[in-house]
């Protein structure tokens, strides 16, 4: 059984595109990154999972419950942190969390107070008085009080300072170790890179790649930077896997997709003074796929 499974999930707002033909499979117990630029369809996907929206076509299941029919059952086992936290402003933090807890028919136990301590949350303050970061902390606590099987996070780090971000990642890792599946939507690639097991890139409402984060980085691309000896004329590379070649202050830099020995054979013909081969960061991988997908669409 998958934690999340969608088949051809599509949502249109009238004529406007939300998401198109989304096919996702998130395994139970994994941390799944969902990356895309603003307006790509991340929040629409999450709102479909939570039955705030209903699909135009296709289907989706969360722990085998249909997202269009079994909303209350799904929400009993799902915790959610929204991008923008909007809670009842006249309530205090404690009142809000107690209000939320009563929907799950639970009382606030030591697990709750541990979370409050870890996030340094003041329970007596009114929601209206809280900063964006503190509201996010409230969102984190209320999403975890009922010990969900699946956590859906929509840009969870926005508004949080780096220290609290680290606390949040510690809490999330701890939850994941206890078996909670995490669906992590973000456009901050570094967060996804250090935290997630698998990722999917979404662009213009469509998934453009879905893979294991390590294999995605390993099998696909390398960043090559080299500097030629002084007085050497500029050269061009003929290897077919060379992508995004550019001149930088450190020399010539490009992404390479293919077998490294073949490239080295070509490079050995050049008077190279210095060469480095590194793993690209996720942003480069994302941009590569993003651009090549755009090119394919244009053609």
């Amino acid at each position: 059984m998958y934690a999340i499974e969608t088949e051809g999930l599509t949502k249109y707002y009238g004529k406007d595109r939300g998401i198109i033909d989304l096919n996702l499979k998130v395994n139970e117990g994994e941390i799944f990154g969902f990356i895309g630029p603003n307006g790509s369809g991340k929040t629409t996907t999450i709102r479909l999972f939570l039955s705030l929206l209903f699909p135009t076509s296709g289907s989706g299941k969360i722990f085998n419950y249909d997202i269009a029919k079994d909303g209350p059952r799904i929400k009993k086992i799902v915790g959610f942190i929204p991008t923008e936290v909007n809670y009842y402003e006249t309530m205090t933090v404690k009142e809000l969390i107690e209000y939320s807890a009563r929907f799950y028919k639970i009382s606030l136990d030591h697990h709750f107070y541990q979370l409050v301590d870890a996030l340094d949350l003041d329970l007596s303050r009114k929601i209206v008085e809280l900063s964006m970061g503190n509201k996010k902390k409230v969102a984190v606590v209320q999403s975890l009080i009922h010990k969900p099987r699946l956590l859906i996070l929509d840009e969870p780090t926005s508004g949080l300072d780096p220290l609290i971000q680290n606390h949040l990642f510690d809490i999330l890792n701890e939850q994941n170790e206890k078996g909670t599946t995490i669906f992590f939507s973000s456009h901050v690639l570094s967060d996804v890179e250090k935290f997630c097991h698998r990722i999917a890139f979404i662009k213009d409402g469509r998934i453009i790649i879905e893979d294991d984060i390590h294999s995605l980085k390993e099998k696909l691309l390398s960043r090559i930077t080299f500097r030629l000896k002084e007085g050497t004329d500029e050269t061009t590379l003929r290897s077919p896997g060379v992508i995004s070649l550019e001149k930088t202050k450190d020399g010539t830099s490009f992404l390479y997709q293919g077998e490294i020995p073949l490239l080295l054979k070509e490079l050995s013909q050049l008077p190279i003074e210095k060469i480095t081969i590194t793993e690209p960061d996720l942003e480069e991988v994302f941009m590569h796929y993003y651009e090549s997908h755009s090119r394919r669409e244009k053609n």
Partner: protein
Amino acid sequence: MNLNLFLKEFKNNLKGTVITSLVVVLYTAFTFFIYASMKTIISQATDFYYTLPQSLRVFMNFSQWDKVLGYYVTYFVYFVPIIIGCYSIILGTKLLSKEEQNKTAEFLLSRPLSRNQIISSKLFTFFIHILGINILAFITALFGSGIVSKWEINLKSLIILHTYGCLICLLFGILGFFITVVMKRAKAITGIGIGIVLGTYFFDMMIRIFGRVQFLLYLSPFKYINLKAHSPDYGFDAWRLIYFFGMSCLLIMLSYVFYRKKDILV
């Protein structure tokens, strides 16, 4: 229904209900105070009444003023169907639209609640508040008319009159609730709500005054309140009750149907 949601909604809307109740109680008390002070001159003013234009006579309904119930009916329409009706439609539109406007709908809808439970809890809150104000209005009218007439009151007529008032208030609120359900992006429609109540009232009055196109009266809910409380055979008419209950049930049922599949765009 969900008790947790009901209690929160009940508490959140209590202030508006208390203020409206105070307005209704004070207005009713004031109405009876005026009657008590001018009771002696009413009989002398009858001749003057018949010199007034027909339209004004329709408006004032002065011919019934020799009895406290007849007098009360004239003013009843201003504070029960209109004041409470306006509050009712505002409350009806606010219950769902406020969640969407303040974007707390995302919080509420990500709790383990069905859409039906949300509708039921909100509607139950609405019924309790509007019934509460109407009961208070009835009690004030009962004591007001009792004191002024030395308890020579027609209790049955007063109960029937207030029941009609309560039904029209509930209908206005349910209409407001339904409007926010079918709106793509629910927003506070306070102005439109008050416009519906006052608009249908003046529409009803205009047709009565000018006496033309009487069949159009059936479009106004005010047509279905029986205000002839002084009449000996005053009672509940089946066709009026069918209208109020039928319309209310239909709008409630449609609210459930539409909200069940509504996209919440926050």
